């Protein structure tokens, strides 16, 4: 017992009691102001020191990081450029596919003909002549004289063929004449091209009642084109008293300036009537 209440034990007990008391007070929040008072300067000092250290480190390491970032930026820019190129290519492919789908629809709607789909790759060098160059030739079954159409209507006919390309004479060419039928008026006439690509209508009888907007279809006369291909619409008509025929101007259904793909009718037998021509 003497040992239990010895001064040493009492001192230890007091210390343990004080420590426990401090822990309980700390856990209870009573010592927060004390801690704040003690730790605030320490934290401020630590923050200041840390900031200076980071600044000091950045001063020596930032150039390397900038170079890395620049390299990454360049790589990303390159990737963006590649993706943009890919998008443009895909959009072009989509546009081409849409045209081909439209041509396919036309081919399905006219199953009596066989078609060779081809792309327009060039236009005649002489501004006085209306020709286009397409990317299909004799290797693909294209032959001289075959009619050429789009989903909109008649384009022209094959004028020259080599192995992998052909030249197409458009119906707008000045030397071109196409026999047509005016659907509503039920009369036949002839359209002529010109050096500027405009189309005129001729050989319409004076007594024929032709309305503006009347639809023109190929008549099939002459054996150069199949019958009932859409050609255009009547824009205006002129009738002179002393003339044998009425004349007029025609709006072609095909936009010849933006032709990008065409169909060659491969199973149409062109009849050459040149020997019969006086």
């Amino acid at each position, binding site marked *: 017992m003497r040992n239990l209440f010895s001064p040493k034990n009492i001192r230890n007990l007091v210390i343990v009691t004080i420590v426990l008391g401090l822990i309980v007070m700390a856990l209870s929040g009573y010592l927060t102001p004390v801690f704040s008072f003690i730790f605030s300067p320490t934290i401020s000092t630590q923050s200041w020191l840390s900031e200076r250290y980071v600044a000091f480190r950045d001063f020596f390491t930032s150039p390397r990081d900038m170079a890395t970032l620049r390299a990454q930026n360049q790589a990303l820019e390159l990737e963006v450029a590649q993706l943009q190129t890919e998008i443009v290519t895909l959009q072009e492919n989509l546009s081409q596919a849409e045209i081909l789908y439209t041509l396919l629809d036309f081919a399905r709607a006219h199953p009596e003909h066989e078609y060779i789909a081809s792309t327009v790759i*060039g236009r005649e060098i*002489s*501004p*006085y*002549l209306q020709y286009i160059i397409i990317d299909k030739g004799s290797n693909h079954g294209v032959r001289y004289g075959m009619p050429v159409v789009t989903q909109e209507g008649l384009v022209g006919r094959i004028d*020259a063929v080599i192995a992998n390309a052909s030249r197409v004479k458009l119906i707008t060419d000045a030397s071109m004449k196409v026999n047509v039928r005016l659907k509503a008026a039920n009369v036949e006439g002839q359209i002529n091209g*010109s*050096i500027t690509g405009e189309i005129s209508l001729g050989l319409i009888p004076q007594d024929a009642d032709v309305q503006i907007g009347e639809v023109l279809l190929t008549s099939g006369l002459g054996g150069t084109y199949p019958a009932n291909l859409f050609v255009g619409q009547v824009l205006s008509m002129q009738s002179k008293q002393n003339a044998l025929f009425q004349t007029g101007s025609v709006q072609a259904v095909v936009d010849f300036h933006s032709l990008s793909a065409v169909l060659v009718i491969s199973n149409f037998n062109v009849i050459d009537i040149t020997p019969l021509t006086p």
Partner: protein
Amino acid sequence: MITYIVSSIGFFIALMLQYGIFSRWTLLSGSADIVLLFIVALCLHSNVKRLWVQVLIFGAIVGAISAIPFYFIMAFYFAIFLAAQQIRKRIMQTPLLSMYLLTFIATLAWHALNIAYLFIKRIPFDLSTALFEIMLPGLLLNILVSIVIHAIVQEGNRMITPKGAEV
């Protein structure tokens, strides 16, 4: 040899650009003819000995693609070559002026040749339409584009052949 190869490559590039782009790029109904301009610039600037053979071959190639008969175009390009030789003797001190002059003459001659072809083939056309809607716009475009073609051919020629050298 390198001069022949480079000028041939230049010709084919001009040919593809003409058929693919410039023939569709019209002012009214006239268009620039950069193949013609390339031939003009080549005849004015090239120092190769047998340029006339090359010009005839170029004419044959264009004639093979075009609906105009090939001998028309060969003869026309050869005439450009001869005209260029005469101009070089007289006013070569001002190459751009030579280019303008020969472009003007060659363009008018090219249109005259086309009109002559239409006459020969008995294709009906209106002469005033040809003049105002095709010839004059085409002449204007050719004059404008000739500056670019002249600069490209001149610089290319300077790079390939040293000044005064004759290959």
